[in-house]
């Protein structure tokens, strides 16, 4: 009796001789063209300059948005990181799951930071403010 309704092929994507491994290999070893590498480098250096330049301007006051400078600095850093990951680290041509790992790890970092920071102010409320109040009373 057959134990599976569908006949199962004895080959998989790795063992199947008909799979075009040469093509696969090209995927795994995508050779990045030189102009792209140089272009990304120039872009990264330019973005570095922008990050520094942005600190010369007080964006917070200019647009009346708190912490805008930090947000812009991190945004530029994120763009830089994306270029490094996509082109220098070959993610653009790599298995999508590897990209997912990167995104997921960043997401978990964000999760950790955001929830912990929510709680970070508690020490101010529970410890520091009462302590300061006590020291005022003491005076």
């Amino acid at each position, binding site marked *: 009796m057959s134990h599976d309704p569908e006949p199962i092929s004895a080959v998989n994507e790795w063992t199947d001789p008909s799979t075009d491994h040469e093509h696969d290999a090209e995927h795994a070893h995508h050779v990045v063209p030189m102009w792209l590498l140089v272009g990304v480098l120039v872009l990264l250096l330019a973005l570095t300059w922008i990050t520094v330049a942005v600190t010369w301007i007080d964006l917070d006051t200019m647009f009346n948005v708190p912490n805008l400078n930090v947000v812009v600095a991190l945004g530029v850093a994120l763009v830089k990181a994306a270029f490094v990951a996509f082109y220098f680290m070959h993610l653009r041509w790599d298995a999508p799951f590897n990209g997912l790992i990167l995104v*997921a790890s960043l997401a978990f970092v964000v999760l950790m930071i955001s929830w912990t920071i929510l709680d970070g102010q508690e020490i101010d409320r529970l410890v520091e403010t009462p302590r300061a109040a006590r020291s005022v009373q003491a005076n």
Partner: protein
Amino acid sequence: MTTATSHPAPDGHDDHGGHHSPHLAHHFYTMTQQVGSAKLGMWAFLATEILMFGGLFCAYAVYRALHPEVFLFGHYFLDTNLGAINTAVLLLSSFTMAWGVRAAQLGQTTLLVTLLALTFLGGVGFMGIKYVEYTSKFDHGLGPAQGIYYNVTTEYSDGNTAQVKRYLVPNSAFIIAGEGDIKYGVGEPTSDQLHQLDDALHYHEKYALKSHADEGLHKDHAKAESGKGDEHAEDHSDSQATPAFSGEADPHEHLVDQSFTPTGAMVTSAVTDTRPPEHSAMALATNGSFGLSDTFEKSGIATTSVSSAALEVGFYEPTLWDTLTEREQSLAYQFFSIYYCMTGLHGLHVLIGMGLIAWVAVRALGGAFGPEYNTPVDLVGLYWHLVDLIWIFLFPLLYLIH
């Protein structure tokens, strides 16, 4: 492949003659599968690195959200230029590494070795600059667990000089770190310096003053009355009684009018030997209730650039370490604690990356890599790029605090 060779299996995985690279491990069918596994494993490892640094970023974020003034204050001690140069160095080395992977894929062994050497040199350059930064900080007492101090050299009228080590803490003083050798009252500060002053005042008002008013973190009076560190108070902390700040010898420093001192002296002091000339910092401190504009006018500094908000800001005298409360002392730790943890761990990763690059370069010299097999170059490259990625975030967060 002993079993498979002796018993050709029905899946026919022995048929892939073209793929039987000597590098193929026995438990993989094809190089593609092996390379894919290696890359997947490396990315999973990189995820652990990201999460590990994530913990540090988390500590950074929590403390920066809690005490932005500490971070603003602390970052003036960092050299943005060196940080930016280091960023560029790492980006360049990342580029040479990526190029190296390309060279390995194309079988250009000489080019590959050259590029790996250049990448390694990038690491050396980065660590060299870090070394310069670290040593200059250690020289000035900016260790991971030390207060931030500077030395005040005082000239007495009889010609003797004395050096006093004064600690700076956020909330009690702020620093103007600027280009050029600025000494308070000597020459005019540049617009840059005024901008930074303005900037610092802005933050000071926003955070420190608030805490001063609301929470009574008022060092001078608190310490004078708390009786802590009496000896020091006698010696130094009461600037009225300390000749250190009267600076009679220098007409330019003849700023401290006795009439200002009842509530605490307005103190100015030229920072002498604690910082490199291009990095001279000036502590400006007073807790007087007088208008700041007076001070500036007397010192010949144009007041126009100072925002009106700044004029209402009270300044606090740089205080002696021992007279601070425990909490205040601890605040001074924070920025550099985090700075050293983050850059230290990152530096360690740079060193590990350099070791890996050296290993790959030696193997490349022996002609180990080519179009068929270049996984180690690829993986070391990924690691090196990640080190670069982390620095891309560290740089603005530590050096470019606004």
